[in-house]
């Protein structure tokens, strides 16, 4: 059975993933839009940076974030200056790390969707008196709906599944940074295999459902497509 602590970690995981996904959509949408349309020389570099977490071991990303957000890191000094203290081993730090870690899973489906839309509907909208912002919300967003759905689902699911970054940046603090993947690790360390089974089963079911929705309802090939 799931213990109260397990339920707390599930709840925390859900909270981290929800907030991170919302932030990723907020920042990832303009970024993906820019990447889909720019002819700037920076495009290649930014694309590569956004895609880094896809290939980098999570511990490497977590390590750098830990250093940067620590008391002597650039970000850490900035947050200290703002009077916020340092971010490692806090809920905020965990959310920020999650956003960076899962961003390609949001940006890439959106970028692909925006590229597919092409120039023509935008030009049609312009000749029908729609300003660029108006066009984005009345034409681009509805046409890119499958892209937004894929981005949301993948971004959320990937955040739920993270472990390495969490361990590095968030640590293992109950109710603050202890998410499901870490809790499973704790159970296994303590040889509590039956508890580990329950939580692992939950994650397995969740991940499978997500992919099932993606492949059947949305008919996309999430990972294969993005890496193109």
């Amino acid at each position, binding site marked *: 059975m799931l213990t109260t602590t397990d339920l707390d970690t599930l709840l925390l995981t859900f909270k981290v993933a929800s907030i991170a996904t919302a932030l990723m959509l907020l920042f990832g949408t303009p970024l993906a839009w820019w990447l889909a349309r720019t002819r700037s020389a920076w495009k290649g570099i930014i694309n590569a940076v956004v895609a880094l977490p896809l290939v980098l071991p999570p511990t490497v990303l977590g390590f750098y974030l830990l250093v940067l957000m620590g008391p002597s890191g650039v970000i850490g000094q900035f947050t200290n200056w703002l009077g916020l203290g340092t971010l490692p081993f806090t809920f905020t730090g965990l959310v920020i790390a999650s956003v960076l870690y899962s961003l390609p899973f949001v940006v890439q489906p959106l970028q692909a969707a925006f590229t597919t839309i092409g120039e023509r509907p935008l030009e049609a909208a312009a*000749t*029908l*008196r*729609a300003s*660029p912002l108006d066009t984005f919300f009345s034409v681009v967003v*509805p*046409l890119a709906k499958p892209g937004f759905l894929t981005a949301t689902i993948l971004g959320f699911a990937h955040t739920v599944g993270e472990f390495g970054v969490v361990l590095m940046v968030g640590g293992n603090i109950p109710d603050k940074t202890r998410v499901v993947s870490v809790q499973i690790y704790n159970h296994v360390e303590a040889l509590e295999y039956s508890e580990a089974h329950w939580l692992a089963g939950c994650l397995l079911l969740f991940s499978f459902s997500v992919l099932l929705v993606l492949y059947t309802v949305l008919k996309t090939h999430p990972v294969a497509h993005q890496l193109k």
Partner: protein
Amino acid sequence: MILPINARFQLDYGTFQLVVDLTLPGSGVSVLFGHSGSGKTTLLRCIAGLQKARQGFLEINGKIWQDSNQDIFVPAYKRPLGYVFQEANLFPHLTVSANLQFGLKRIAKTASNAVDLQHIVELLGIDHLQNRMPDSLSGGERQRVAIARALALNPEVLLMDEPLASLDAKRKQEILPFLSRLHQQLNIPVLYVTHSQQEVAQLADHLVILADGLVVAEGPVPETLCRLDVPMAQDREAATVWQVTVLEQEAQYHLTRVGFSEGTLSLPMIDAGIGTRLRLQIYARDVSIALVAPTATSILNVLPATITGLTDERNGQCVVRLQVGNQVLLSHITQKSALLLGLQVGLTVYAQIKGTSILN
């Protein structure tokens, strides 16, 4: 008072340059004609503001839309125009009705721009499609919706970029009558891009011929079609267009007599009332030349004419430009005939018209 359109653009894409300086009439259909790569679509896009020529000046209906010297460039979405794309470009996520409303919702509702959308919808025959999605429409239906969507904005100028090019011959015939009808009912200027001589003959009042980014000929349609320095005059499909009026029906002969500024013509019977104005297309290949008035001939339409131009032979063929009063006519004849008859500029001859076709 309808003001002319002034358009000057200079654009350089390295391999392609566009240099135009045009004054187009503020009413009627001006056709921008040329082969692919001639710059006709680029010119239209510059006028719409979809593309920005670094050097440009554009004045429509007394308003400046671009003046690069003063750093003025009105973005496309602020220009009161209607644009019809080659592919209908309907929004796939919206019904026909929502597509028609898209622009309408975004223009200020004032008395001066109130349009009768229902009238436009009926004119284009799309009333029964209102609740359909664009994907379920045929190419011709989609294009009609696109035209209605552009007109719904009550634009100050209508820009059409080869609206028929993506349709097959049957669909073209389905839309052309609508376009001709629009042409009679609209009092805004229409700029129409095409590479089809048939569409030029059917729709154009004013013709601009473009090649390699330059204007090679420009003017009212009948005169411009008959310019011998324009490749169109050499074409097998070369023709001129005359405005005629129905004068009387000769039912016993199945003929209709029509009048033009210099006389009358007998045509195979046309189902139209007396006084109807028609566009008549006369192919150069259907016009032959006689030196003396033919008395015994089966050809009914013989008009006295003066030769005002004669091209050198090409593949044994010559093009003759004939002046009938203030109307012009082209004739394709063989080089041999031209030599035997001793044709030369200034000679008075008789033009025999073997056949014509009515365009609307």
